[in-house]
């Protein structure tokens, strides 16, 4: 079994884990439903746990934003809500039960977090508020939630996109609930955003990075088996020259071994059947 080829999830987990540095604080929420839960919670958690076991022993995991360094190996099924009674009993190092609490998000205590949006645009803005006109929307969504804080106060943000289609990756979002790089890093500064912003975007088809000077998203790596034409067709903004874009690297055998044996032996996070 452990010689199987890496799955898409495993590839993303490992790529993400490699970008996490020792001593950081990572914040993840919880979400419900297959792909959404996988990208919003399971992949981030598995990546953090993998980083911790390989090169970042001092990483702090902030599960659901309030459960610090949970003993993830004690979870049988992935919890599907952030204030579930069962999470309260999960052994961990600290619980943040009041706000403001043990971390000072406005001081920049959080090194990285994970967001998703129904729309993401070419400069990395996020939208979870509405599709269409704000006053008479075609679809009213849930609202900005914690996105504005994620995209302003966290030192960097990973955008997790369970779906990669033209309707998700648009030239301009219909409502900016999380601010990307309009005008690049200088543009953010002018807006009063001294740090933070999206760093990478993980999708089922590629990983995006950012040209932070000009503020535009660019393809960082393409997943094996995805053609550049298919990627262009699935994306609502111009991707520029894709000639030199490398393939998303595969996990090393060692990483896969730690991931499968120690991080997620029961396949709860990767959805891998055991």
């Amino acid at each position, binding site marked *: 079994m452990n010689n199987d080829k890496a799955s898409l999830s495993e590839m993303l987990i490992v790529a993400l884990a490699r970008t996490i540095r020792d001593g950081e604080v990572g914040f993840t929420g919880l979400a419900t439903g297959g792909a959404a839960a996988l990208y919003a919670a399971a992949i981030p958690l598995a990546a953090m746990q993998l980083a911790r076991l390989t090169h970042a022993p001092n990483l702090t995991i902030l599960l659901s934003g309030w459960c610090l360094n949970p003993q993830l190996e004690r979870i049988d099924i992935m919890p599907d809500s952030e*204030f579930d*009674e069962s999470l*309260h009993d999960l052994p961990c190092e600290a619980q943040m*039960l009041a706000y403001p609490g043990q971390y000072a998000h406005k001081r920049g205590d959080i090194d990285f977090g994970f967001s998703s949006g129904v729309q993401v645009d070419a400069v990395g803005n996020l939208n979870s508020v509405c599709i269409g006109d704000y006053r008479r929307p075609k679809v009213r969504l*849930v*609202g900005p939630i914690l996105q*504005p804080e994620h995209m302003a106060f966290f030192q960097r943000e990973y955008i997790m996109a369970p779906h990669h289609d033209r309707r998700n990756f648009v030239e301009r979002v219909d409502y900016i609930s999380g601010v990307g790089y309009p005008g690049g890093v200088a543009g953010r500064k002018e807006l009063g*955003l001294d740090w933070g912003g999206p760093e990478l975007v993980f999708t089922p088809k590629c990983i995006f990075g950012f040209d932070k000077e000009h503020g535009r998203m660019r393809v960082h790596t393409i997943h094996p088996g995805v053609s550049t034409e298919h990627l262009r067709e699935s994306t609502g903004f111009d991707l520029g020259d894709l000639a030199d874009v490398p393939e998303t690297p595969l996990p090393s055998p060692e990483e896969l071994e730690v991931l499968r044996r120690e991080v997620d032996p029961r396949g709860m996070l990767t959805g891998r059947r055991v």
Partner: protein
Amino acid sequence: MPERTSKLCPLRDAAELVKDGARIAIGGFAIYQHPMAFLHELVRQGRRDLTVVGVANGNDVDLLAGAGCLKRVESSYVGLEKYGLARNFRRKVENGELEIVDYPELLSWDRFRASQENMTFWPASFLGGSDILRYNPDIKEFPCPLTGRRLWAVPPAAPEVVVIHAILGDTYGNVLVPSRRLLPQSLDITLSRSCDTLIVTVERIVDTDEIVRLAHLNEIPAFRTTCIVEVPWGAHPCPVLGHYRTDDAHFREYTGSSHTDEGFQDYLERYVYGIRDHAAYLEAVGMETLTPLKTGDAFPAEPSRQYLPDKRGAAP
């Protein structure tokens, strides 16, 4: 010695403290621990043009939206988490029948802190570039008086009435919040300190001796409470942490019915309009449904005070 005044009050009278057009905040968070029995009573009384100011709302706002009670909502989230979008709310907003003002989540909490501290605004540093600003004329840019930094003044939540649901209280209005709490319970505490009129519905009224025994858990002292109402299962179908679980089947019935206005009117007929009061609601839901929802109790009850509606008869 003169007698201390009881603040115990029937649900009906408590709901009358919320007038048409009032600005209210509702305890709980998303789909957790809302004072649902109280909201049902508001719907039954036909309240109109309410503004709800909140942090993260769910079936509380969706119910009031579907029953036509709302004019405006200020929040960071209106949704039903694993049960999907809040369909009544969504329909009303898409039809232009309900105004929604979007705020970031922790800033929404800060707005209640501003009210708790009587601040005329809350200073935020991080709104630049977001459409929060574009659609909200109540927020004003200003320079930091000390550093010149660009900041935004955000209006306080300023609820006229706050209603929360808790496990225990006494007749004078003291309310305990168990040490076994999570952020939603802490938010209720902030809410309770942000207003002049505070209504608390509780699962159970206890003797003040019990309050004294657990004084370190008394987060809402009597003087802050306007009235207190005993409403067992008062958050159903939401869970109460340390008391009972979500009624998953009821939530599915609720969301199923809310696909259309007509479907939701049927739901309201079944559980609100066609029902006399909360005791009748519990009969309609059925103890055979409720009892299995019980969890370990944060405050183990004295057996004599356990709520058995079929034995006590009168409605709270």
